[in-house]
Structure formats: C-alpha cells, structure tokens
C-alpha cells in the first residue's frame, strides 16, 4: 500500500478513535460524515454545489494560469518591464484575498464576474512570480543552439522553452490550485447564489458541523484527486527524462 494512502487511513482512524472516546454533537466521527456525504449527494445539494464551485475554480485557475504565464514570460524577459511590474507583483502577493473580493463585490455587485475576477487577481501574482523565475533561469546555451540550428518559433517554444519552463508551470499550478479553491470558498461565503462556500455558510447558521465537514471533505477529495491523478502524473511524464533519484 502506498505510504500516502496509509497516512490518510491512519488519520481517519485517529479521528474515529477520538470521536468515539470523546463523543459530542459538535465532533462527529468520520463514519457519520461519510453518511452525511452520501445523504447530501443522493438527496441534497452536494453535487450541484460542487459543480458550481468547481466551475469557478476551473475558470479562475485557467484564466490566472494563461494570463500569468504570458505576463511572467514578458516580465522575465525584459528587464524594464520587470522593474515596472515588480512592485505590483509584490503588492499582489501580499494583498489580502478578502479585500479584493469585497472591493470587487462593491464595484461589480454580487456577480459571477466579480468572483472570478477576484480569484484571478489573487492568483495572478503567484503565477507571474513563478514563471518569471523560470524565464530568468532559461539556458543561454540552448538559446544559442536554437538560433544556430535556425529553429522556427513554434518548434523553439515546444522543444526548447516549454520543457525548461515546465517545472515552474507545474509548481505554479499546484500551489495556485491549493490557493484558489480556498479563496473561492471564502468568496462564496461573502456573496454567491450557490456553491460549497455558500452551503457551508448556511450550515454554519445551524451549527451543522457534520454537514460542513461533509461538504468540505467532498470538495477536498475532488481537489486532491485532481492533484494526484492529473498534476502528479503530468509532472512525472514531463520529468521522465531526468536521471532517477534514489
């Protein structure tokens, strides 16, 4: 059994044990949470809420990755642009997520656009900063090789630049995904017409901790599955040319 799975099962077992030793209405055991997930999925709003939140995460994530990568390449490539952008990247990295969401909700109303825009604004600086580092570390020797062998732009991007940037893009994607799903939930609590955050806020009004944990666990499971089965596999495929580390 993989160590990762073993670790998760051990954590669940510990939770079950503690909940059995200290039974309380506000500390449900994992089995109760699992039952609640099943109930919410079968007869409740779980799937619809999950769908809404995942759509927002996917949209915000994709937009931030595409725009951030393009900006990161420009910023990393041109020193003057870097100097002009640098203070704003730092501001963006330190801007509290809540502030951007509140400001955009005030300006644009409680709309889907405001929510997605707030997500993109929060994630963008991280992608720009990561890709900028990647561009700065590009090999001058390989660039010379590409020019000497007259590689056309498309091929140069595909076989020379992209493989060098890939570790940075994957790092930006993974850290960014972890950041985005958290802030999407917060923004949904602040103002939205559905989604996991919205539902958790409703449950909070009734101190329905089992429901809150059920909604959260379902969502985390989807995100972790995406990380394990998409990003990690992509990472392994991209890195297979590297020497195997012991």
């Amino acid at each position, binding site marked *: 059994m993989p160590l990762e799975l073993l670790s998760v099962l051990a954590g669940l077992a510990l939770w079950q044990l503690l909940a059995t030793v200290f039974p309380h209405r506000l500390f449900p055991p994992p089995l109760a949470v699992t039952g609640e997930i099943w109930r919410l999925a079968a007869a409740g709003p779980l799937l619809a809420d999950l769908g809404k939140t995942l759509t927002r995460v996917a949209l915000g994530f994709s937009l931030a990755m595409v725009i951030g990568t393009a900006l990161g390449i420009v910023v990393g490539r041109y020193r003057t642009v870097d100097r002009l952008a640098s203070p704003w990247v730092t501001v963006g990295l330190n801007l509290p997520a809540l502030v951007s969401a509140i400001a955009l909700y005030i300006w644009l109303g409680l709309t889907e656009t405001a929510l997605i825009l707030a997500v993109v604004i929060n994630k963008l600086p991280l992608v720009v900063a990561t890709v900028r580092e990647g561009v700065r570390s590009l090999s001058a020797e390989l660039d010379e090789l590409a*020019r*000497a*062998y007259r590689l056309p732009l498309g091929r140069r991007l595909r*076989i*020379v630049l992209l*493989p060098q940037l890939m570790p940075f893009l994957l790092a930006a994607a993974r850290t960014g995904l972890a950041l985005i799903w958290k802030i999407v939930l917060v923004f949904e609590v602040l103002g939205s017409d559905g989604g996991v955050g919205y539902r958790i806020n409703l449950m909070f009004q009734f101190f329905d901790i089992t429901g809150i944990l059920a909604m959260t666990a379902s969502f985390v499971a989807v995100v972790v599955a995406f990380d394990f089965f998409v990003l990690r596999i992509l990472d392994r495929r991209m890195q297979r*040319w*590297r*020497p195997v580390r012991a």
Partner: protein
Amino acid sequence: MATGPGLEIDIAEKRHHGAAEALFAGFRLSVAPGETLAIVGPSGVGKSTLLRLIAGVDADFSGSITLDGVPAAKAPAPGFVFQDARLLPWLTAEANLTELGVAREEARAALVRVGLEGHFGHYPHQLSGGMQRRVALARALSVNPHFLLLDEPFVSLDRALVAGMQRLVRELVAETGATALMVTHMSDDAVRLAHRAIVLGDRPATIKGELQFDVPPAHRSPADIGRFVGRLAEIG
C-alpha cells in the same frame, strides 16, 4: 560530389557591448569550398566569437560574412558542434536529431555512423560524455553535412576517445566534401584534420600566421604531424 560552400569573411568591426577595444577590426578571411580550416590561438582571442558570427548566431557586427554569396544569417543552418555536447536533455538521442527536421531514417543512419547503434532511444543522461559528443556530431552532420563549424570539438575528452573522434570527423568530412572550420587551442587537433591552419593573436585579432599543410589529412604520418605542430608553434 557536391562540396561545401565557399566562405568570405570581411568584418569591419566587432566589439562586445561596453568593451573598450574591438575584438575584430578590418578582419578578412576566405575559405575555399571543401576546405577544412583550423583556427588556432589562445583563449579569449575571439575564436569562438568568430564561429558564432559565421553561424549567423551573432549579427551584431559591421561588415559582411557570406557563404556562396549569401549572408551568413540567411544561409542554411550550419552543422555546429559546440564545446559541450549541448543536447536537449528531455529528448532521446534520436529525437535530438529528428526534432531539428532530420528524417528518422537519416537520424538513425547518422547515429549508427558515429557508433551509437542501439542507443537511439536513450536520453542524454543515460549516455556517457563521449557518447553525448558523438550524438552532437551526428546532429551536426545530419543537419548540414556540407558546412561544419566545430568549436573545440575534442576539449575535455580523454585522448583515447579523441583519436577515434578525430578519425571519424576526418572520414566524414572527406566523404561529404564539407567546408569545415574548426576552432581549437590544440595544435595537434589542427594538424590531424585541417588542410590549412591560421593562428590568431592580439586585439583586435589579427592573423599572425598561416600554414598550408602539404600532405592530405588521411595520409599524414606521425613525423608529418610532429613537423606541422612544430611549425605552428613557431608561428604562434
């Protein structure tokens, strides 16, 4: 048999950014089609820069460099062998050739020619340093077998390997009738492979001397080689 292009170099000035002195000023050199020219000289004299100008990689100079009348930057890609293997580490040996536009069968034939049969699918880190250099040589020969630029092609290889590589280069150049320029600081490399050698010195770089070897590369005896090395040393 088709031979490589003729090369005409006329550099009015080449200066690195911020440098007080020009690296080249009023520098002229002609290389005949099918000729192998060795450019010998101390480190920092501008040998590698000259090769980059000829390859069309560096266009920041005044003057002209032409291959059969075509400006270097617009001429077909040369077969460039760098000081290091400079393979794309994420591509297999074969893909390092095919991704540059070489047909698969041609790439495999070139790899076999340099003794790498059975290593087509290996990534560079799975090959020894010498094997990587041979992939680089195969790449250069497949991309342009008629015009080769060799920048210290045998540096940091052990001498046993160098002898094999030298023989390989000599045979391949003879087969294709390539025009080849080889930069080296080792007189030995020059006298084993070239038809002619020039010695660069000073700044701006000038041709301090030139030696036309009167025995074809494939027929040089150890005595010839010793004699030529001696004469090159006298010039340098």
